[in-house]
């Protein structure tokens, strides 16, 4: 009897509203401990400013319009770079997954380029593009290209051949076969590629902005370091965390929209 009680109790606690809040307990607790540690002087503010100071710095930057402008610039660079790199990666993934000839022509080259860390190209990119927008877009596009290319290719190559045979038997044309069998079959893998790419997108952008830029979040953090504004540095880092979480949530929404047929994405 007592066993049944103890087992059924946690289940009844799992209301959907509570579920959404549970994931925020740990971050909020960390911030609370951090605040207490700063106020009591356990952590010197020269090393790590209190969350309230960081919030205050954020408020000031928000009022001056600097914060919104920098976030917007970074967001714009990230999205455009992602779109360019992502579409090229997707196109190559499709071509090489569907055509033997295309795969033989380009796959080896792409695999070689893939093994060069794209951030190692920064000096070269600065020489080519200066610290212009195109330098950042180029780096983000290059970073995003590979996860999307590889996962699209993998997705298309691993579509169940029995389903493709079925499609052919039932008289599907090449276009129909792609639309109804190959693309939906490759989609779970493509979505995984998008999630990887979103992570790489932020990483690349922040590094690029830190090294060579005159606006954006990375630039804001570097400027703050020059003037020893440690609260702004911490603020920038926290904004990266929030933006990363936002990108992850966006990809989850994408998963739910496109993979609703997949048992792994059903709500339990």
């Amino acid at each position, binding site marked *: 009897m007592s066993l049944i009680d103890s087992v059924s109790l946690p289940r009844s606690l799992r209301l959907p509203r509570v579920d959404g809040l549970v994931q925020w307990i740990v971050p909020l607790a960390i911030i609370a401990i951090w605040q207490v540690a700063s106020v009591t002087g356990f952590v010197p503010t020269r090393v790590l400013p209190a969350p309230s100071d960081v919030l205050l710095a954020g408020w000031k930057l928000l009022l001056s319009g600097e914060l919104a402008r920098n976030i917007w610039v970074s967001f714009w660079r990230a999205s455009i770079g992602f779109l360019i790199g992502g579409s090229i990666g997707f196109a190559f993934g499709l071509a090489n997954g569907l055509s033997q000839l295309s795969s033989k022509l380009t796959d080896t080259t792409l695999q070689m380029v893939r093994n060069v860390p794209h951030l190692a190209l920064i000096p070269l990119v600065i020489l080519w593009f200066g610290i212009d927008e195109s330098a950042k877009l180029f780096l983000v596009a290059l970073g995003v290209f590979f996860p999307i290319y590889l996962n699209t290719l993998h997705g298309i190559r691993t579509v169940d051949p*029995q389903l493709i045979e079925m499609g052919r038997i039932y008289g599907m044309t090449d276009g129909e076969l792609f639309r109804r069998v190959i693309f939906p079959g490759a989609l779970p893998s493509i979505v995984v590629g998008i999630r990887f790419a979103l992570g790489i997108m932020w990483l690349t952008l922040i590094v690029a902005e830190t090294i060579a830029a005159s606006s954006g979040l990375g630039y804001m953090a570097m400027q703050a370091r020059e003037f020893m504004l440690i609260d702004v540095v911490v603020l920038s880092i926290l904004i990266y965390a929030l933006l990363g979480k936002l990108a992850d949530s966006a990809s989850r929404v994408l998963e739910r929209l496109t993979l609703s047929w*997949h048992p792994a994405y059903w709500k339990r």
Partner: protein
Amino acid sequence: MQTALRTSLPDTELATRANFAPHARVVREERPVQTSGLPLSIRGLRKSYGDNEVLRGIDLHIPAGQFVAIVGKSGCGKSTLLRLIAGLEKFDAGSISLGDAVKPEDIRVMFQEPRLLPWARVLSNVEVGLGRDRASSDAHSRAEKALTEVGLTDKRDQWPSILSGGQKQRVALARALVSRPRVLAFDEPLGALDALTRISMQRLLERVWRDQGFTAILVTHDVAEAVALADRVLVIEEGRIAHDVVVNTARPRQRGSAELAGLEGSILNHLLSADDRT
């Protein structure tokens, strides 16, 4: 050899069966007779994979609308024969003729795996079976009718992954039936199902075959299934038709009757004695 296995039905049993289900018989007779099946003629059919000669000259005539079961040990070439008939593979020599003016929609195959598209709802999966008529305006109603025939109307908007194995196979059957095929080839369609689901699926197959009158070719390793469903059982050994057995038992057949069991036993004996010889 053939005559030895040919069986005739005792008169007494016919009489009792007629008494037992007179209504069922009347209903069947009132239906418009659809002679939609295609006759099938195969001459000297050969097929090899590399050095392995799988089919070594098959000669076979199947009249329109007949239900033929093909049995044999694994690797005897029975599935290859079916794939050749269905046009899934090319043969090396011989001919297969299905009469004139055969459209691709006239021949359908059902596999051991349901092969449903997991990302399409049940009804769209059935619509796939319409072939080139998928875009036509009555596609929906035709697919719904086919779903009704297999008794799954209430599942039309479900994803295939929530269906049981038997239900998935019924959707696959609806997909094969929706284009009103004239030849339906079954490649062990019930092999992966549990015993009870198998029997109800066998009944379903027999019913739709009787209703629609297509020519049915069933490859199976289950001799009991073959004698329960087919008009004629072909035993394939080493790439040739070793026995051609006519099953005259009237339908609906009594599962587990002594007559079918006897027939099953003698076919099994042939299969096993061939085993002893090698």
